[in-house]
């Protein structure tokens, strides 16, 4: 132990100095799911297969929304989507002061998000 202690002392620290250096995300990291809305055929498979109910597909309003704080990045939705509308980004979703819902609309260029009163927060009453 003595030897390694001295070795440590005089070697460069192992620390990755995040946030000064970017996060260490390996290739294929499951960061967060996103929608490429042009392709969606509104088959609802993603919503049905999501194990945590993070996805809400609004067929009428032509939006897909995902609650970031519900998604467990299992990649199931990516897998089941027949049109590869959904894809996984390497970058993980960021923390925020409130649980975030990201909404993807067919007409939107990029996702935009708004914070909504999450239905799940009142879940307790149902139980």
């Amino acid at each position, binding site marked *: 132990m003595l030897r390694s202690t001295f070795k440590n002392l005089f070697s460069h620290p192992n620390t990755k100095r995040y946030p000064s250096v970017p996060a260490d995300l390996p290739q294929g990291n499951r960061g967060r799911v996103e929608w490429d809305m042009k392709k969606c055929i509104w088959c609802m498979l993603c919503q049905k297969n999501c194990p945590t109910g993070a996805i809400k597909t609004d067929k009428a309003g032509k939006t897909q929304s995902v609650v970031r704080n519900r998604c467990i990045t299992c990649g199931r939705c990516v897998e089941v989507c027949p049109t590869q509308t959904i894809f996984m980004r390497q970058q993980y979703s960021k923390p925020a002061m409130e*649980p975030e819902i990201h909404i993807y609309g067919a007409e939107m260029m990029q996702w935009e998000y708004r914070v909504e009163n999450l239905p799940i927060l009142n879940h307790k009453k149902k139980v």
Partner: protein
Amino acid sequence: MKSPWILHFDTGSCNGCDLEIWALLTPKYDVERFGMVNKANPKHADILLITGPVTKKCEERLRKLYEQTPEPKLVIACGDCASTGAPFMDCYNHNHGVNNVIPVDVFVPGCACRPEAIIDAVIIGINKWKEKAEAMETNVSHEDKIMPDDSPRSDQ
């Protein structure tokens, strides 16, 4: 704020996020760079890192720990289950997120949340800390009472 001391409490998590918190303390992430130390004692803590959806049995314990932490304090809900309880959404014995028990300042998504995300959360939290410290100075009580048991959050 250059010296956030943390308290970590597991309220029914799966250990995933807990270990990511521990990983924070270790050489690769080493949050002691920011002065963060795991004090594991509410009396010393500034930031409560809470994991888990808050099971029924942990509820009272969590409240107590929260009460024992002196102001100003921050609560960071680490992971999906602490934020919304989602991974365990059909389980019957929990509160679906920390904010149903105590006020939460920052929600960290991810199951498990990455250590980097927790660092981000602390950085967000520190800004909020300043507000709270100022509020304390001017004696404006800022969320210092615990929310009643079943009141939904209305300030969303």
